């Protein structure tokens, strides 16, 4: 099994049988997302000067081919939209069957049915009037960082946006509805704090074996849904803090999930400079704090949205900790 670690300094592929690093790829360039699917590896680059690029390898990274990145259409001349219609970053890549999905900044969801040779913008979401209320979270403009595809009904897609709540489609991305009921943003004016469209979900995951169960690490806390994101409830037992970015769910046990709590939003560090993972095994009723193998002094790194992954077995917690150690600071993992 290979662990693909996309970082600001390149793409690193780790053989998880021996935990050894192979030759780095795109060394010195920011790799904002990586996906291994159907025999290919896709790497999204964010070249500081020369824009967002997409590369595909058919030979496990021996060679890379440049393929077309998603492109936004021209903004209508009479549009009042203040968001640039330009690709600023590919924040996440997901796949189901023959379809690839790219979540991007400034908020567009793109689909490819030809292995990334061409992409089309999901206009049903992009053209929603509610998009005008979205705003950036950590970036100047809003972005889609989480795409959850129902494992059996692939036309059922949920996406999470910083900051634009959770949106869901039941028809393959043609039409969309908000799906953030129950989330709350206590830092907003009281009359808006339950507004589904302004929720800042930092990361959302869906249990593959029980897709009605989803977890979200939100700016304001940790939430779980047991009804396919129709409603969410807060998991207030999270420890040592409710702030963070990363979340992972056990692929076979919907009651087991992991989070990486940080101090708080105005000071984004591990609490007391100790890096820990919070794990629930009872659907969020209680949490245990895992420290073994993690730095317990002078740990000042933030584990960012995509910096946590579990493999298909879901069980080897030690692997999770090792992945964490390797991927601290804005790493994005893809485990296949």
């Amino acid at each position: 099994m290979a662990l693909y670690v996309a970082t600001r300094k390149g793409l690193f592929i780790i053989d998880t049988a021996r935990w050894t690093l192979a030759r780095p790829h795109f060394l010195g360039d920011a790799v904002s997302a990586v996906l291994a699917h159907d025999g290919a590896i896709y790497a999204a680059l964010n070249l500081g000067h020369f824009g967002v690029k997409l590369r595909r390898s058919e030979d496990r990274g021996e060679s890379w081919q440049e393929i077309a990145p998603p492109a936004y259409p021209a903004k209508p001349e009479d549009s009042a939209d203040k968001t640039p219609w330009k690709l600023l970053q590919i924040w996440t890549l997901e796949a189901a069957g023959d379809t690839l999905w790219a979540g991007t900044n400034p908020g567009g969801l793109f689909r490819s049915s030809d292995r990334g040779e061409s992409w089309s913008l999901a206009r049903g979401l992009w053209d929603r009037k509610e998009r005008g209320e979205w705003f950036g979270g950590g970036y100047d403009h809003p972005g889609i960082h989480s795409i959850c595809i129902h494992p059996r009904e692939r036309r059922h897609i949920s996406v999470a946006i910083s900051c634009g709540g959770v949106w869901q489609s039941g028809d393959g991305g043609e039409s969309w509805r908000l799906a953030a009921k129950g989330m709350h943003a206590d830092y907003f004016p009281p009359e808006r704090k339950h507004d589904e469209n302004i929720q800042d979900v930092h990361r959302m995951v869906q249990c593959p074996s029980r897709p009605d169960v989803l977890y979200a690490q939100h700016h304001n806390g940790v939430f779980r849904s047991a009804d396919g994101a129709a409603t969410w409830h807060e998991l207030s037992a999270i420890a040592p803090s409710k702030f963070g970015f990363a979340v992972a769910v056990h692929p076979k046990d919907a009651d087991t999930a992991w989070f990486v709590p940080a101090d708080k939003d105005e000071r984004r560090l591990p609490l007391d400079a100790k890096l820990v993972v919070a794990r629930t095994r009872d659907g969020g009723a209680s949490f245990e704090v895992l420290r073994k193998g993690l730095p317990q002094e002078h740990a000042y790194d933030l584990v960012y949205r995509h910096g946590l992954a579990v493999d298909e077995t879901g069980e080897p917690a030690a692997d999770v900790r090792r992945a964490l150690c390797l991927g601290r600071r804005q790493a994005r993992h893809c485990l296949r």
Partner: protein
Amino acid sequence: MPRVVFTSHLQRHVAAADCQVSAPTVAAALDAVFRAQPQARGYVLDEQGELRKHVFVFVDGRRAALADAVRADSAIHVLQALTGG
């Protein structure tokens, strides 16, 4: 004919050969270059055809925009802006 010169930083990512083209403006010169070297277009211009935010163009030593005119003996330098990191 104006001469178009690309930063060596670009060559690390994509082939973009310096060349001479007949064109009255920066935009026309780059368009002519990218018709011959289409792989380099997306590295200098974004999907709306505008100069990328962190790319600079200088014409005869002066910062220029796409619409600016060039002379027959102008040198057009395309380089990375340090705002891009």
